[in-house]
């Protein structure tokens, strides 16, 4: 803001008046957003609400009245929840350690963490396919360790999709959490410990609680990417682990039923929006009640 002010002063106030500046700053983004997001969403909605040129709820009735599609939606949400939990459990410790690390290695390790993001999700999914086939490394290792007594096929299963997708999305969780942990003053933990809290208790009571906003942001990011992921479920899941994204593709490309594909997309969007709002509201309420207490 001061930079803009300085610039305006240097130019002898020949530029636009200060009130216009925010509008100008937002204008390009707003236009792009309207043209590339709001407009397509609206046309998606209209496509799903029309049948043979007439306003109709027939596509929604088809979705809501068919337990197959409820199962599809349920499987998709289950996928999102599982992937989010796995990335949280794996990501929190990594992000915490990386944020607290004093050595020069920290920066290098952070770069290494984000390295998988440089490889396309398609390539990473192909990698998992090699591991997941019945005589792949995963199955062979588990058998050698005596954990399973027969070849384990993770390929073409939802479990396989969850594992592969968790790996694909983990760096995003770590990156989000890392920034938050980094911004929490370690002295707060020391303060809690000096008042008698054991280190794990201090971590839970102080750091994790302060990191809540980051955990929410990371979870929402991973959840929404997981339920809309297409490449990994398509490659690893196959026909038996169908999810909403692959069903939308099937309706659009194979069946050429665009109205129903739009319906699937709209239903998914509504559920994600509702879940995100509920999740955010619940954490918000807890934060408020705690601050009052």
């Amino acid at each position: 803001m001061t930079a803009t002010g300085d610039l305006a002063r240097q130019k002898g106030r020949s530029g636009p008046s200060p009130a216009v500046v925010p509008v100008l700053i937002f204008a390009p983004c707003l236009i792009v957003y309207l043209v590339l997001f709001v407009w397509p969403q609206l046309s998606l909605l209209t496509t799903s609400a029309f049948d043979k040129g007439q306003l109709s709820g027939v596509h929604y009735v088809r979705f809501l009245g068919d337990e197959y599609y409820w199962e599809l939606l349920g499987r998709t949400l289950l996928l999102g929840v599982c992937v989010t939990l796995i990335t949280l459990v794996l990501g929190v410790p990594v992000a915490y350690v990386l944020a607290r690390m004093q050595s020069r290695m920290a920066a290098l390790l952070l770069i290494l963490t984000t390295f998988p993001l440089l490889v396309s999700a398609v390539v990473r999914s192909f990698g998992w396919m090699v591991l997941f086939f019945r005589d792949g490394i995963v199955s062979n290792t588990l058998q050698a360790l005596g954990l399973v007594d027969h070849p384990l096929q993770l390929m073409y299963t939802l479990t396989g999709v969850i594992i592969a997708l968790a790996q694909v999305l983990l760096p995003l969780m770590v990156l989000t959490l890392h920034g938050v942990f980094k911004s929490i003053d370690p002295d707060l933990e020391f303060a809690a410990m000096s008042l008698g809290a054991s280190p794990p208790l201090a971590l839970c009571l102080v750091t994790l609680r302060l990191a809540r906003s980051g955990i929410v942001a990371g979870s929402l990011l991973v959840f929404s990417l997981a339920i809309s992921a297409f490449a990994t479920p398509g490659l690893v899941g196959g026909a038996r682990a169908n999810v909403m994204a692959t069903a939308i593709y099937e309706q659009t490309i194979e069946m050429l039923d665009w109205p129903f594909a739009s319906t699937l997309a709209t239903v998914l969007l509504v559920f994600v929006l509702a879940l995100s709002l509920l999740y955010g509201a619940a954490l918000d309420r807890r934060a408020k009640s705690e601050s009052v207490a």
Partner: protein
Amino acid sequence: MTFDHISRRQVLTGLAALGTLPLLSSRLSAAESFSGRSLVSSGFGGSTMDIIHKAVFDPFDKATGAKSTQVPMQSAAALARLKSEAGNPQIDMFQFSGGQEDAAKKEGLTQPLTSVAQLNAIPAEMKDPDGHWVTWAVIGEGIVYRKDKIKEPPRSYKDFLKPEYKGHVAFPAITNGYGMDFLVMLARAFGGGEVNIEPGFEAMRKLKGETIFKAASDLPSLFGQGDIWIMPYDTGNAFKVQSSGLPVAFATPEEGSPAVNITAVVAKGAKNADVANAAIDYMLRPEAQIEIARHMRWTASNPNTKLPDDLASEVPNVAQLAKLDRAIINEKRPEWTERWNREIAR
């Protein structure tokens, strides 16, 4: 209306006239020199496109002096391209594998083939009655199996249900074109067919526990891991897996091989229509068709093609192809897919 009728008759008369002079016209087209001319065709991309180029376009260029290039695009995208450039096509010749030639003709995007002497030899069901498209190769589907696990070559689609193969079968999802054909062929094998699909679903329900895959890219892994012995797929992919060193073979089922037609059309208004016609004529010649069979294991559409014995056993003959009623299949596709998703993949 009248104009259509006349032009159609003219074409037919023209074709008949050509038929009386096959030798002369073939000599003429061979002598034709296209030096300095170019031909742009759509192609299928990847190794398929490279092999076709080596087997067909390179020798054609050598014989005529033309310079041919293939632009990779999937069939649906190729049709879209042809449509968007209607009247002023940048690509002279299009190759389709998904039946797009019919739509292209209906929308007036193609022109009748001229001076394609070999057209006469091609069976009627493999070419347009008005001469707008011709099938220049056929991908035969059938049974792909592990030679080391299954000693006696499978003979029928019924063999997929043999108890000794239980747990060792894989088949493509219905959204993969071969998955749809598998359903129809199972129905035929058990007394049904396109109009009575029930026996197909009934048989496939018995395969519910088997491996279902979506894409051809899974084939090497599936066969490589050792416990998949048998699946319905095509000669071309069987050959690719075989070339990678796996003991895999192709068997033509007694119910016949469902097939995917590879067609060629000349774009309406193409700048190099004469070169394209000559190239199509070249592609239909037995010597070119043998090369395609050798390097792709695709079936020759020209019945005059005599494959060497070693090839003949691995590629179904054009007479062994099962003719599926694509119109019914396309009409029923949404219904069967919905049903398949519920009854088989669930």
